[in-house]
């Protein structure tokens, strides 16, 4: 059987983020996620440090590793120089590499992030590309966002943008040859493989759950992972 602890320690973030945790709990005291979710970064560090393969596998399949907001407040405060936030990032990577992420409600959400942020990066060269992303998916953006969406081009022009233009400037069109370079970087460095794995494991889970799995955001499985919340995650 693959040794999960060894796979984790191959990640530089474990080498940087977990030296010798003394279980003081300072990270949990400062952690915004621990104030909201049933979550303790101290327990995460303790579990990984224990090298207990069964417990690490449970963690990789759990909701727990997806609660962190990666604010890295823990890194500032740890008296031993550990960073549970970095441990979390290594756990999340391994969970996706091995396909364990679809075993939890929060882990399954990776498909939604891949289909939005992930694909915007490759299609446009930006992490966010928000023309047409309206208050139906983001009601908190308020009526001012509806107005901006309605007048996207005029609004950006008024503020000095070079929307979809050539040359430099705000929200310029990223040249096709640059996008080709980005895609090659993804191919060479494992980014494309990560995206493919997210898709493949998600499709298997969709079949298991009996949900329609299609491309883009207009299908049952996307809507399910994007909006499902079993209400068992928070502290109350």
């Amino acid at each position: 059987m693959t040794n999960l602890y060894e796979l984790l320690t191959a990640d530089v973030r474990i080498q940087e983020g977990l030296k010798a945790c003394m279980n003081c709990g300072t990270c949990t005291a400062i952690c915004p996620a621990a104030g909201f979710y049933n979550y303790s970064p101290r327990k995460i560090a303790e579990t990984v440090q224990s090298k207990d393969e069964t417990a690490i596998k449970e963690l990789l399949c759990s909701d727990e590793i997806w609660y962190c907001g990666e604010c890295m407040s823990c890194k500032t405060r740890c008296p031993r120089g550990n960073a549970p936030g970095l441990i979390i990032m290594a756990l999340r990577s391994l969970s996706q590499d091995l396909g364990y992420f679809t075993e939890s409600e929060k882990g399954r959400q990776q498909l939604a992030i891949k289909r939005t942020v992930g694909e915007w990066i490759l299609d446009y060269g930006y992490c966010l590309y928000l023309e047409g992303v309206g208050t139906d998916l983001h009601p908190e953006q308020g009526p001012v966002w509806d107005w901006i969406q309605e007048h996207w081009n005029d609004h950006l022009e008024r503020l000095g943008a070079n929307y979809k233009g050539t040359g430099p400037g705000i929200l310029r069109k990223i040249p096709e040859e640059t996008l080709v370079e980005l895609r090659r970087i993804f191919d060479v460095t494992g980014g494309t493989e990560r995206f493919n794995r997210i898709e493949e494991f998600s499709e298997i889970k969709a079949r298991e759950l009996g949900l329609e799995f299609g491309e883009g955001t207009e299908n049952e499985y996307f809507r399910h992972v994007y909006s499902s919340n079993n209400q068992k995650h928070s502290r109350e």
Partner: protein
Amino acid sequence: MILSGKAAIWKDYQKEIADDRYFYVRSCVRQNFFPGAETTFLRIMREELGKDVYEHPCHTTCTGIGYHSDVVPIDTMMTVVARQFALMTESGYENLVPSCITSFGIYTEVLDTWKHFPEVEEKVRNYLRKATGREFQIPKNLAHASDIIYKFRSEIAAKAKYKLVNQITGEPLKVVEHIGCHYSKMFPSKGVGGAEYPYVLVGMIEEWGGELVDYPERRHCCGFGFRQYLVQANRGYSMSCSHKKFESMEPYKPDMIITNCPGCPMFLDRWQYAIAEMEGKTYGENGMGIPVFTFEEVAGLVMGYNPWDLGLQAHQVSCEPILDKIGIPYKKEEKYNGIKGKKLGKPEMPVKLKCC
């Protein structure tokens, strides 16, 4: 010079900031939500301070939001960052200036990782060569755009038309600052004032006439949390974080909030709207919200730029109370105009949050 006493202690909280010839890389969040802020930064740098700021048309996202929401692997992120370094090197620049705090954290993390693991830098150089044929030099200086404004805060004050002072009472405006987690929580020595005494925004507030509000949850995250906001099912986390901050700052009756990171002003602005609509609770005066600004917008305001050129119309919480307090003139009827006075209508009013 041998430093002693307080000077020696504070030396740890300073950072070196280049004084000219900057290679500017834009922010995905700021470009979408606060485009006027980036326009204003470049206007101040080039027109007011006469600095050389170069933007390469082929630079891209650093992938930071994808990396911190864990869909982009670390090797991919580092190689995209290496490509930005290559563009900088090819353009003859050495001082990298990101517009985004997430990017600033990403660049800092990459440089720190390579310092500790030179074999990782070598691996990334090979990846970049294989994917693009490019080579790069490591930046000589890395400073966030706010570090640059901080460095030149006195020069800006000397040219300013307005101060962060209530023109009626003569009192300094009470200003909440929010520096954004990835500015110095990960690598305290890379931020002005470190993680304990972050001074990058405080320096601007004090230099431009305002008064800092210190409050219990000053260091708390705004609540972006990457996947905690990107996915609808998780947004309770995001909103709760902002709510915690608003409740904590409310007793100090702040006049305004100034932010460092491109995402934080969006959350602190929009969650005030959402909390008002859901709970009927507002944190500003007379049923309004506390106006939230980017540091570029505040610099533009004291310089006397037209508020609608800064893009303050893109905020959900109305900024007019601050304009009135400072005494900045504005034309209400032009707020939602396009260029050359083109009429673009105006947003609907929220149900509970009072807006101008």
